[in-house]
């Protein structure tokens, strides 16, 4: 029997739907299987709706500081229900956008739970029953879910995952956030801005532990100043919920335990890939602790089975999933005889990471410590927001931009930023890094005035002792 499709993508998140579109562009016949909502977590329950929430928090924050800009805003207050409603509206709009993109690219959507049956067969069980579809290649893009704490199972009432936190049943008065990665810090920032009393507990000795140590230290200081309590080197030992709220036993840095009362808890201690019950074991797809092993193009050990996004080794970021989707789609087209495509393998050191707390955090490449660990002799540049005219005019003089270069070759090894709009700025460095820039090209680049981006120039100059405005 002839295959119905050239490619079936299992999961329609930012990895899956992008892979499907790219494959369709390359002339493949593509089907996509989704069990819940097109666009996956990112659009519906992740990146986008949280950005909508954080935007409300940002505007609210600015209203609170209106007087500093010579404006008056009296009796301001936040309506959490209206804020959440706006966020859901944004998610809905984008979900419909993906539906349209599937139609436009003639990608057939199969709603239901897909299970790989081998030989390119996939059994899809949906509301209307079970059907079997087949393809020459399958991309597994089923994503991930929040990791549970054994003693603090999320119940949606008092104990939340990111998903509950996005549509809170009530505004928390006293919130405990367990974990200080991007998700934990963003919700801590949001609820603090909205008026909650927030405590963050992190097991490592610093918050946002994947970032450069200077950024962690700066962010901790800044969040503390905003009123967030931060406990690093600390762990939550137990959680007990009652009608009155939550009691959490927290073991501090000094080793002593104490009980604290909270109204709600957000558990943000990482993610678990969704690799169970989709037929991977029977096919013999190699996984390590649930994570599917792939090569630079998304190939698993089983011919015809590919994997992208959060089911594969990290970083677990939507844009990494999308890019892997494009690479895998092109590699599949190539395998099917398209000689025009030239997929390039993923370079993990060129994937930016952004955290939308206030101040924002963004980075790409190696931290200073990692660069030294890797044996580089480094040149480090640092430029503060206070030295930038636009930052001062914006009333956003908090933050810095740090760049790390290899002293011998001038290779841009990493860039680390904290401050207003850095999540938009970072892309300049990502482009440069992908083009394999050295300090010379960055120094030769003309940066527009007055912009925050001028600090990117100054940071590079600073690495070579040539900063102009400090």
């Amino acid at each position, binding site marked *: 029997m002839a295959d119905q499709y050239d490619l079936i993508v299992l999961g329609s998140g930012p990895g899956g739907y992008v892979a499907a579109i790219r494959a369709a562009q390359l002339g493949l016949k593509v089907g996509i299987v989704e069990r819940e909502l097109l666009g996956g977590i990112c659009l519906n329950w992740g990146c986008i709706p949280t950005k909508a929430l954080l935007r409300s928090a940002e505007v609210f924050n600015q209203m609170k500081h209106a007087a500093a800009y010579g404006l008056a805003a009296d009796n301001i207050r936040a309506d959490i229900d209206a804020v959440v409603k706006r966020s859901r509206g944004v998610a809905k709009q984008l979900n419909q956008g993906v539906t349209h993109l599937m139609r436009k690219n003639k990608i057939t959507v199969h709603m239901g739970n897909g299970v790989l049956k081998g030989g390119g067969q996939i059994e899809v069980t949906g509301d209307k029953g079970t059907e079997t579809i087949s393809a020459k290649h399958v991309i597994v893009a089923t994503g991930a879910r929040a990791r549970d704490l054994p003693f603090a199972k999320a119940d949606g009432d008092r104990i939340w995952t990111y998903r509950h936190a996005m549509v809170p049943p009530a505004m928390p008065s006293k919130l405990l956030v367990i974990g200080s990665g991007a998700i934990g810090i963003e919700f801590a920032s949001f609820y603090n801005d909205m008026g909650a009393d927030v405590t963050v507990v992190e097991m490592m000795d610093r918050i946002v532990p994947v970032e450069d140590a200077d950024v962690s230290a700066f962010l901790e200081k800044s969040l503390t100043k905003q009123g967030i309590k931060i406990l690093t080197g600390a762990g939550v030992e137990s959680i007990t919920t009652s009608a009155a709220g939550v009691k959490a036993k927290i073991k501090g840095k000094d080793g002593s335990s104490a009980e604290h009362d909270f109204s709600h808890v957000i558990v943000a201690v990482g993610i678990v890939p969704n690799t169970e019950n989709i037929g991977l074991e029977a096919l013999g797809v190699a996984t390590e602790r649930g994570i599917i092993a792939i090569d630079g193009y998304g190939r698993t050990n089983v011919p015809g089975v590919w994997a992208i996004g959060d089911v594969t080794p990290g970083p677990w970021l939507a844009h990494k999933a999308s890019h892997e989707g494009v690479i895998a789609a092109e590699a599949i087209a190539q395998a099917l005889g398209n000689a025009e495509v*030239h997929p*390039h393998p993923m370079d993990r050191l060129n994937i930016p990471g952004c955290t939308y707390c206030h101040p924002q955090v963004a980075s790409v490449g190696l931290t200073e410590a990692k660069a030294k660990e890797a044996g580089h002799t480094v*040149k480090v540049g640092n430029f503060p927001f206070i030295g930038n005219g636009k930052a001062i005019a914006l009333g956003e003089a908090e933050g810095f931009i740090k760049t790390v270069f290899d*002293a*011998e*070759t*001038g*290779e841009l090894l990493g860039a680390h930023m904290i401050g207003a709009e850095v999540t938009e700025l970072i892309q300049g460095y990502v482009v440069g890094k992908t*083009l*394999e*820039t*050295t*300090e*010379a*090209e960055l*120094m*030769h680049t003309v940066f527009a005035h007055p912009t925050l981006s001028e600090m990117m120039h100054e940071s590079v100059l600073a690495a*070579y002792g040539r900063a102009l405005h400090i």
Partner: protein
Amino acid sequence: MPIQIKMPALSPTMEEGTLAKWLVKVGDKVSSGDIMAEIETDKATMEFEAVDEGVVVAIDVAEGTEGVKVGTVIATIAGEDDDEAVPAAAAAPAAAPAPAPVAAPVAAAPAAVPAPVVAAPAAPAGDRIVASPLAKRIAGEKGIDLSTVAGSGPHGRIIKADLDAAPAAAVAAPAVAAPVAAPAPAAAPAPAAAPAPFSTDIPHEAVKLSSMRKTIARRLTEAKATVPHYYLTVDISLDKLLKLRAELNSALAGEGVKLSVNDLLIKALGKALMLAPDANVSFAGDNLIRYSRADIAVAVSIPGGLITPIVTGADVKSISTIQKDMADLAARAKAGKLAPHEYQGGTASLSNLGMFGIKQFEAVINPPQGMIMAIGAGEKRPYVIDDALGIATVMSATGSFDHRAIDGAEGAQLMQAFKTLIEAPLALVA
């Protein structure tokens, strides 16, 4: 703005060189194309031209300094507008005994011109090399010739990873990665540098190795240690070739051309390689490089060592052109004035020791070439001609082959083609 002049990578294999002679002094005005210095590389003495205009304000590395690493600042010139031009001439550290040329990575001023390299030698004229800024920088520092590197980036752009694959300064031929014997890290890169000081009671004199001697030692040790050699010998009657040579020479006498036996053998080897193309190859890691032209490297003995100038396109050149090429190359080789592209590369080598009466010998392959032909003396020997024993002028030729690239039967086909061409030599002038 002052411009730092750095030790150039004058050849792909060059990691360091000797600053043999300064031809400018502090205060001299130089313009693009002026010869600034003579630099002795591992193979030759090369003239180093200025690419910028200005006044020499400092000589940073004194004449006669050995082991100056590529990329080291050797002089500074100031542009016309620079105030600091023409300083006191005394500022020159000319007499300073070896100012320890630190190979500082000189990541300094971005305006500093990327090492004024004398036109990338192996680059086919007019072809722009597309490489990332980082790849260009690393290549400059390590002395890697980018024209020898295959790019894996978009549109064939050379990126950093491509250089990681191509070991620094080990590349010797265009488009051919050096045959790195990965599993044998023990193949010491500098066998010439004896670990323990040599001592002997025998009356002796210690002669310091020239860069050329060191390179010969390193490359031939590498070749013999990493290339599986095998040898094929044939006896070849030379009488018809000698007769043809005499006729050609008398015909060409008016033009003042005198062909040597070696010129004819170069032509024969070039043509034989085209008739047995499986032997006109290089082993290059994951690839076998099949050449569609025969460039014959001819071993020439020169004071202090030997060098292998290359007769390009020997398969198609006329014998008289080959003769002219060889005369010119040999003369310039002896004067140490060959440009790197004139002695690096080649698809096969020819080594002739016949003039010393050597009957037969086996030569060491010159990587990345796949074979070398060793020519013995032509001598009168009993020889069977038309089923009768007669006397013929016979020479023994022995091909050394890289078994990774050329199997026995393929090597044998080349030897057979070579023998046939010499014994029926009219094909050489056809």
